[in-house]
């Protein structure tokens, strides 16, 4: 990708993503966290569009920026505590965690920087959604079906775990 627009778009979107992520991790209020997280997700969706993965960008917006963020809000709502302001933001292993993360980042960054990537200059086919659909139902049909079962199981499981037990009811066997 070498056009000015693309380069500029990349850097702009990167800034948005990173800025949103940092603000998310360091915000005091949980709802603020969710909102920043949504911004981050939207940024990532924009990045997908930049990378010619339009279907994926849409899925990202729908699932992440939509459903997951709302689920988080629900979670925050259902686990409210009187003081929504946390007394201490970070736990006791802050310094050590910073160290580990920085080291990992340096290592990964360094290795990435000096790596030579295999690049094919192939063009992306125009109708990605058509190709993805075909692939999903032909080559990757088994993972597709398994994923469906997984979603069912997760659904049922979440209901079972979060179900309210009325006082005096028999315990389930």
């Amino acid at each position, binding site marked *: 990708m*070498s056009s000015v627009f693309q380069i500029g778009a990349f850097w702009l979107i990167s800034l948005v993503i*990173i800025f949103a*992520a940092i603000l998310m991790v360091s915000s005091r209020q*949980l709802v603020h966290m969710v909102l920043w*997280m949504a911004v981050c997700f939207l940024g*990532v969706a924009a990045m997908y569009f930049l990378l010619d*993965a339009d279907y994926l960008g849409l899925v990202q917006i729908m699932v992440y920026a939509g459903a997951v963020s709302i689920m988080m809000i629900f979670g925050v709502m259902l686990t409210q505590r009187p003081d929504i302001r946390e007394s201490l933001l*970070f736990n006791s292993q802050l310094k050590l965690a910073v160290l580990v993360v920085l080291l990992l980042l340096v290592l990964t960054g360094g290795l990435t920087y000096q790596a030579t990537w295999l690049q094919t200059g192939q063009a992306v086919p125009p109708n990605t959604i058509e190709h993805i659909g075909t692939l999903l139902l032909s080559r990757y049909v088994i993972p597709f079906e398994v994923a469906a079962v*997984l979603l069912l199981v997760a659904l049922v499981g979440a209901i079972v775990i979060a179900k309210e037990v009325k006082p005096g009811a028999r315990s389930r066997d």
Partner: protein
Amino acid sequence: MPVPAINLTVGPTNFVLLSAVLFAIGLFGALTRKNAIAVLMCIELMLNAVNLNLVAFSRFVTPQLFTGQIFTIFVITVAAAEVGVGLAIIINIYRHRLSVDLDDFDWLKW
């Protein structure tokens, strides 16, 4: 390490670096935040970083095969399921212990 003066193209390196930074931020949050839901959100951030990586590779290495994109679809699926179940667990714990402070959840040592 070769240091390019001004990079005028956007290649896989850029995307991998971006993904690494995002992952690091998410990891930092997952290791240090006290609220359980905050940690869950940071985990989502890490998963997004990985997705970004995959899609970038798909675009630059196998654009015709859409390998990375299919992979990403599945990751999104599983991540969504995981969020659902994780929130259900947190709600359950909250109901019994009236706290979502991870410092209080020390039952892994029994």
